[in-house]
């Protein structure tokens, strides 16, 4: 359903129906797709959209480092498997202790989500064409609401929440003066207040 929403909202923001479909096939990372469409819809430059999307997807690097051997070692498995590297498939693979089962879980989750996501986006994009003026239907509110729903679980962490609220304040304060898209990137300065509390780590020696 997230996919269908992405398709419908993208088309509602003025993109042709095939654009969200293409994005979902070749990018296959929901957060960065919402991000890129949102920045461009707000009048931001495509360059800002690309940079923001890439920063957003940088978190896939540690995922790959953590579970990279689950994909299989052949070049083809690595290439196809890498495209399926998303939050969900990583979480599924990490939840399995046995390497063979981790591998099965990774591929099963990745492949099925790839199909569900892309079919959802296609359906949403086609349905979105039936919607008239986006402002009348409140589609401009649907978009930030969708992203807020995606962000909410991560905001439970206090360090992340402080950094994100600081970043949002920076983005809001600079929006009147800077070209669209740039304030969102400036929000990354909020990471300066990002301080993870040391987890109490019971060591066997103590």
């Amino acid at each position, binding site marked *: *359903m997230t996919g269908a929403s992405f398709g419908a909202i993208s088309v509602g923001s003025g993109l042709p129906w095939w*654009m969200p479909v*293409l*994005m979902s096939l*070749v*990018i296959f*990372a929901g957060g*960065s797709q*919402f*991000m890129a469409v949102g*920045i*461009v*819809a707000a009048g931001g430059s*495509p*360059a800002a959209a*690309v940079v923001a*999307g*890439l*920063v957003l*997807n*940088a978190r*896939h*690097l*540690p*995922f*790959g*480092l953590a579970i990279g051997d689950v994909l299989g070692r052949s070049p083809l498995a*690595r*290439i196809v*498997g*890498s*495209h399926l*590297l998303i939050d969900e498939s990583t979480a599924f693979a990490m939840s399995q202790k046995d390497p063979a089962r981790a591998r099965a879980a990774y591929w099963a989750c990745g492949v099925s989500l790839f199909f569900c996501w892309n079919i959802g986006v296609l359906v949403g994009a086609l349905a979105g064409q039936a919607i008239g003026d986006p402002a009348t*239907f*409140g589609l*401009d*509110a*649907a978009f*930030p*609401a969708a*992203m*807020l*729903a995606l*962000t909410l679980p*991560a905001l439970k962490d206090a*360090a*992340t929440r402080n*950094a*994100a609220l600081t*970043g*949002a304040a920076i*983005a*809001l304060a600079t*929006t009147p003066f800077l070209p669209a898209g740039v*304030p*969102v990137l400036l*929000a*990354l300065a*909020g*990471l300066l207040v990002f301080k993870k509390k040391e987890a109490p780590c019971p060591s066997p020696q103590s």
Partner: protein
Amino acid sequence: MPVTAVLILAAGTFAIRLAGPLLRDRVTLPEKVNDLMTASATVLLLALVAVSALTNGKQFGGWALAAGVVVGGLAAWRKLPFVAVIVLAAATTAGLRFFGVA
């Protein structure tokens, strides 16, 4: 959204994803870097939420828009399904506009 931008974002994303499995024997990231990468995703998303909920790209975007996003956020916080979040947000904003709230 030009196709070139989509393809660049796709290629960059794929490179990030492929780098993990290829480099895992040689590279270990400090935990701090790991945490920062994860947090930066949330920081960017919430910033875009704030800007697109409260502004039209330059100035205040109007009460109808802001109220719709707040209602959607409350729905998400109450763990309503994703579709309900979106429909409630859009319906709130559309309804307020219908009654003349900017």
